[in-house]
């Protein structure tokens, strides 16, 4: 867990890209998206027109960061019939499908966040999800070995997608 990057100025221009790491770092692999975005910030130069955010599980409070983004890239743990640690990419409407199931209609999650942006006519122009298949979401700080081993792939995939250059600070 580390501090977050500085955010957008209130009246600044919309970001070319927003990369949002999601999940809970206290539930092992559930926090993989958050860990990934932290590594991305460590290992790559984040230009002024890109926002890399640890979104945690904040749901609707993330709305200011999602509205008007050029390209919204979500990093998240997913459950899928694939080996733990597999990195999968989803585009457009498929993102909504992956994230749409929620515990309740009133528990405003990421799918709702995207719908809320649409209601306001401020949707991101493009949405994609890079997901890593979780091995365990049990209580505990830190990812499983299977996911940890593949996190560099997830981070590299995100960096490629956003055209980021390495900072040289990384490993």
């Amino acid at each position, binding site marked *: 867990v580390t501090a977050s990057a500085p955010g957008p100025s209130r009246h600044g221009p919309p970001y070319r890209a927003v990369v949002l790491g999601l999940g809970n770092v206290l539930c092992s692999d559930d926090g993989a998206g958050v860990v990934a975005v932290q590594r991305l910030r460590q290992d790559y130069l984040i230009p002024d027109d890109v926002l890399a955010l640890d979104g945690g599980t904040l749901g609707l409070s993330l709305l200011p960061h999602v509205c008007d983004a050029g390209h919204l890239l979500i990093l998240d743990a997913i459950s899928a019939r694939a080996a733990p640690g597999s990195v999968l990419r989803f585009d457009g409407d498929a993102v909504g499908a*992956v994230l749409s199931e929620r515990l309740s209609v009133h528990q405003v999650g990421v799918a709702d966040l995207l719908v809320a942006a649409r209601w306001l006519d401020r949707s991101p122009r493009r949405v994609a999800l890079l997901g890593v298949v979780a091995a365990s979401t049990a209580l505990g700080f830190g990812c499983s070995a299977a996911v940890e081993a593949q996190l560099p792939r997830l981070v590299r995939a995100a960096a490629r997608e956003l055209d980021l250059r390495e900072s040289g600070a990384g490993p």
Partner: protein
Amino acid sequence: VTHIVVDPMTRIEGHLRIEAEIEGGVVTDAWSSSTMFRGIELILQGRDPRDAWVFAQRICGVCTTVHAIASIRAVENAIGASPPPNARLLRNLIMAAQCVHDHVIHFYHLHALDWVDLLSALSADPAAASELMRSISEWPRSEPSYFASVQARLQSLASSGQLGLFANAYFGHPAYQLPPEANLIALAHYLEALDFQREFITLHAVLGGKNPHLQSFLVGGMATPVDPSEPAAITPATLEQLRGLIATAVDFVRQVYLPDLLLIASHYKEWSSHGSGVGNYLVYGDYPLSDEPDAALFFMPGVILDRNLDLVLPVDGSKITEAVTRSWYRYAAGDDQELHPSEGETTPEYTGPTPPYDRLDTDGKYSWLKSPRYDGKPMEVGPLARVLVAYASGHERVRTLVDDALGHLGLERAALCSTLGRVLARGIETLILAEKMRDWVDELAAHIDAGDLQIHDASRWEPASWPAEARGAGFHEAPRGALGHWVNIVDGAIERYQCVVPSTWNAGPRGVAGELGPYEAALLGTPVADTDKPLEILRTVHSFDPCMACAVHLFDASGNALAEVKVQ
């Protein structure tokens, strides 16, 4: 191509499960259960207490800031750090902004659909909606053309199957009673509230406080500098920005939220006789108004017992206990014990059914929440508790707003102890808190003018300055109610950590003697018109603002399943 099946991940918000028995169209018994274990206490053991808040703010996906402040205060209390006046003001502003933001979201985005039938808004007359709006508020966005455009947007989203947030609401349920025009007004403000909350929460970014997670707290004070000569710090220009955001909030709450609340309440007055609950209320108090240890608190502390709304008792922290008699934990000295949080234990022991299951063992242990008690009694916490305590303690602004609202609705003060009363109290406290924020900005400005730029007490930062053993407690009146963290520090590391959170007070299970928890008690007698769509149960549960998603399972008197509703 590999065929991949994708399932959602479950977030830590966890899962609130309500089981209820229905007889003759009303709830005759109810059980409230959390089906997800939250064990922050175990994760914090052995860590540096100065880092605890960073972990604590991840306990609950939607209550981040509130756990951070409670944790910081617990550690400060243990090691004897005293945050300076500027830190108090910055914290008050950050926490108040969180509360105002959460209450607006709760009303419009989490609770409104329990009262508002959006599909009915399609048949509203925009001109009549405009007239109705102008009769209840000065809010400028009230043109017939505005309401017509909102209606058109609803129509287009409805016909393209994109109702999204609303997809699972119980449209057309017989318990919806608002006229179409009121439903249309509520929809318009649902959308305006999205914009409002998006703008208002930038206040946290302005204070360097949260973006989107808190980063500017520090044991002993704040990490955000207050300095007129430093552009990255809090300067007089920053304070002007804050004043603008706060003015927007006061206008929105006064001219939109409260008029909507009273309009909706006037069509649902019978809900002032449902959902009464345990009738005991607990408020730790919060928002210190000065810097002495016994400073007056803007949210006044107090205890009200047995609905005696004129008698406020002082809070005695030693009377707080937690039991696990009906919870999936084990206590070393036996499960019939009630332990003070400073002696609390978190030893999970799941004895419930293997999922998927139809019914919990409601005669035995049935929840991951413990049963908090005050002097052995279940207590309701949250906005209603705060408003009742403030009213009885003579808080002028609360009295005025409560009397106005009750007068408008033709209700007595005792009617506040209800589902409707919880919703009213939340709106009233949103306004008084938004208004009060202006004073804190003024105080901060005065300090800066006077050259007081101190934000941190570093005298207790080094563990060498701490006693070998230290115990502390930290409290916060979170949007959802009284929150407490207890920490024991041994040789500079956390030895024991316990949190008693608002949703545990309200949603906890039966206690040692079998007495019902607040949700459980509040559901007794609730009418249920359609067991497939238990909208009325959701109204009462949501009036408490649970931080967990809720599933409702209904059974008839002989235990046969009537309905299983996962929509919350």
